[in-house]
């Protein structure tokens, strides 16, 4: 199931592939701020999600497994929640219930989801060590996590 946020945007996120990843700074669940450009040299996976998105709920624990396995190899994972600010408590609660260990960030102003053309939830973006978007996956279906792992291994080996 793919939930469409704003089909009027019309530009698929896949057009970002090969482009420098748009930089951002967001507040995390823990309260500290995170800036993407400070992780230059790492392989970064960004996962956009929302509390109302069923597939996101399904995908997040699998991403956590991937994160647990590859973080020591240099993987950084940011989970960007795009709920309305009034719903951040619910997002916090969901991340806690799903026991995700990676940083959860809040896109309060929706600048980041706009920059990444996140019109479909979930959206997964892989960024290489040079800060270039190398892979974009819109939506989630069973088995997608294998694709992420394959791409990740490629990027970590570069």
């Amino acid at each position: 199931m793919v939930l469409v946020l704003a089909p009027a945007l019309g530009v698929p996120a896949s057009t970002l592939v090969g482009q420098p990843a748009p930089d951002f700074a967001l507040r995390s669940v823990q309260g500290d701020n995170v800036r993407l450009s400070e992780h230059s040299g790492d392989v970064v996976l960004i996962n956009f999600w929302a509390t109302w998105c069923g597939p996101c709920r399904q995908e997040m624990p699998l991403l956590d497994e991937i994160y647990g396995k590859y973080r020591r190899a240099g993987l950084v994972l940011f989970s960007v929640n795009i709920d309305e600010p009034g719903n951040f408590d619910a997002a916090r609660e969901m991340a806690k219930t799903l026991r995700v260990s990676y940083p959860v960030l809040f896109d309060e102003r929706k600048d980041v989801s706009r920059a990444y053309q996140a019109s479909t939830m979930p959206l997964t973006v892989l960024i290489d060590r040079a800060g270039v978007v190398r892979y974009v996956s819109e939506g989630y279906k069973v088995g997608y996590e294998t694709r992420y792992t394959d791409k990740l291994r490629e990027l970590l080996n570069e």
Partner: protein
Amino acid sequence: MLRQSLYPVMLSLLALLAVGNAVAQNTAPSLPPEMTASAPPANAGPAASDEFKSLDEEVQGLKKEVLDLNRELFVLEEELLFPANTQVAVFVSMDVGEFFALDSVTLKFDDKEVANYLYTEREAQALLKGGVHRVFIGNLKAGEHELVALFTGQGPNTRDYRRGATIKVEKGVGAKYIELKISDKAVKSQPEFIVKEWE
């Protein structure tokens, strides 16, 4: 570009001036300087004298027009072609930081948000080590403007702290630099927000 498009006009005016001067010189090539400057040639009639006078006035008028045009061009250049002159830059700096851990800065010029910056731990540390961060650069028209700076972070006893500072900025012709300095007020054990203008 504007100046370039007006160059042909100026060149034509200068050419006219040159022609005017040449005509004036050619009228009495062999006469002594005192006669060429003020008196018409001895054999010239009153009509020739009038013609000479009107030509001289015309040349003076053209010279004045050229000067006026040049002045207008200069003003236009100042106002339109060099945005650096309308430039406003806002910098954030920190001193000590014992009573304040910076989280974000939001800037509003004339009630319009122009910048919102979240500081990571690393960036805040860089400010504490003497770094200065340019949080905003933009253009403002000459005149009075209101700048509102909102700082968020953690104050004394790690309590959430939100503080605003408002200043009236008088924007002149030159670039304007504004420094927002966060320092510690040891007497009150509170952070202090100082706004400083640089010309």
